[in-house]
């Protein structure tokens, strides 16, 4: 398995607060990795560093073997690593379709055209296809502010995926979504991801979701990775149970997924 993303001794300090300490992670092509940890454990900091939003204090980040330290978010995106957000980051005064068309046009070229129309037939067709894939085609012409939270999260992820990235980072894809919507949402997302053959790393609080979809789990605690491995093994780890997941009664639904 080739390594797509690797971090070496990644550190981040905010003044006296250590948000990341010697993170050494290797993600391989095709993996679906879950990141768990309580609030403030450094999960989002990790994603923000990897995608260029935050500059690490020390360390090295390699994407496809090349350093992306100090690169801007847009350079990292163009290199093939896309992300979604805890709170869906959309264009609130546009329709769902236009949100996707903008994302598509952005993926096609870094230099937008000055005079030829953005909403070309080809782009509309492709965007509609993706909307269908994500099951939100019925919101095609709604303003994004008028669609339910779950659909917004899906649009957010669809915008990241429409550019055919090699790797996708999902920051709490199910946060803010009701319990009974979560599974449906994740099924939709994971199906789409599988079809595109994308490597996925996602941050998640819901252990059921983690167990169901990931092939590997990273457990964070106060800026450090305290466990890394198969979901069953990590979730059974005493330290993880003490510091991250709390003491859950038993494992409910089978033994992990994929």
């Amino acid at each position, binding site marked *: 398995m080739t390594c797509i993303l690797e971090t070496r001794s990644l550190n981040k300090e905010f003044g006296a607060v250590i948000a990341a300490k010697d993170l050494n992670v290797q993600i391989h092509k095709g993996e679906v990795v879950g990141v768990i940890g309580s609030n403030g454990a450094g999960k989002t900091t990790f994603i923000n560093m990897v995608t260029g939003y935050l500059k690490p204090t020390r360390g090295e980040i390699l994407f496809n073997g090349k350093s992306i330290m100090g690169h801007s978010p*847009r350079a990292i995106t163009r290199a093939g690593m896309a992300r979604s957000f805890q709170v869906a980051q959309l264009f609130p005064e546009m*329709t769902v379709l236009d949100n996707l068309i903008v994302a598509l046009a952005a993926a096609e070229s870094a230099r937008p055209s000055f005079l030829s129309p953005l909403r070309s037939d080809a782009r509309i067709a492709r965007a509609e296809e993706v909307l269908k894939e994500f099951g939100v085609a019925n919101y095609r012409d709604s303003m994004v502010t008028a669609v339910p939270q779950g659909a917004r999260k899906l649009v957010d992820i669809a915008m990241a995926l429409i550019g055919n990235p090699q790797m996708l980072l999902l920051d709490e894809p199910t946060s803010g979504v009701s319990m009974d919507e979560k599974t449906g949402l994740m099924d939709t997302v994971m199906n789409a991801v599988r079809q595109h053959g994308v490597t996925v790393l996602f941050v998640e609080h819901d252990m059921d979701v983690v167990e169901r979809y990931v092939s590997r789990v990273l457990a964070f605690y106060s800026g450090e990775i305290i466990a890394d491995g198969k979901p069953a093994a990590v979730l059974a780890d005493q330290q993880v149970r003490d510091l991250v997941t709390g003491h859950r009664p038993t494992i409910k639904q089978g033994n992990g997924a994929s």
Partner: protein
Amino acid sequence: MRLDKTEISLGLIALGCVLFGFVSPGWLIFLLTIALAKALVVQGVVMQMRSGLVSFGQGLFYCIGGYTVGMGGQFFGIHDAVAALSLGMFVAIIIAMLLGLLLTRYREIFFAMLSLAFSMILFGILVKSQELGSTDGFNVHDWTLFGWAPEAGAGSQYTVFTMTVVSGLIVAVLIHRYTKAGIGVICEAVRENEVRVEYLGLSPRWLLYGNYVAAAAVSALGGGLTALATGHVDPEMAYWTTSGEFVFIALLGGLGHVAAPFIAAIVFSFVRTYAIEFVPHTWQMILGFTLLAVIIFLPKGLWSLVSREKTGERA
């Protein structure tokens, strides 16, 4: 090149304006010329407003356009109006490409204030330049159009009017396309969510930069036409209150449609002209109340009167 319905209507209206010029009294032609020329400057303000930036210094490019046309005729022997106007746009583009490097790092109030500062610096330079007449400025005359010199008076006035209408039409069609093209829509996207644009792999800064430069060129064209129409330029063109007027007109029209700035500029000119005539001592107050009324009752500008029944319409 296929024209859509908006473009055809714009063309028809422009034709109507040119014909209307034959029967309209001189003062009205002049008022419309100035209003339309200023509307071009306002188009520059509106282009930036769409991307979320409010320029309180668009007078900079208005002034550059005007002074280039004036100096071209006065000092460099460029008497052809089209050449002089193009030169004005060219100079504005060069200056905008330099200033844009700094300005696109700023947003909101900081962009507004810094653009104002640059405009005031030009004002200061012109006031210091006694060769250019300091605050008195200088007159712009003896221009030609492709070698043809329109007769002084009504003839040249009508020529400038027609030139302004035609420029207005060309710019309106281009901006209409621009707002629907990649850069236009994505600039709006920058206003709505800059972080997301960055994470789509685009550079908001360079988008705003391109938009800033394009807006500068349009505004300079408006300044050049104003210089030809009034026959005079002075540093007041770069003073911050002039830029404030452009923002005023931009809000009056709203961002709803490419035609809105033109209509707003005409309405503004009428309101001001009649306010000056009927309440010469308190015309500014009338303008102030008009502006407040627009903000409170027509937050999307005059254009929302036109598009009111079209719910959910986006420009």
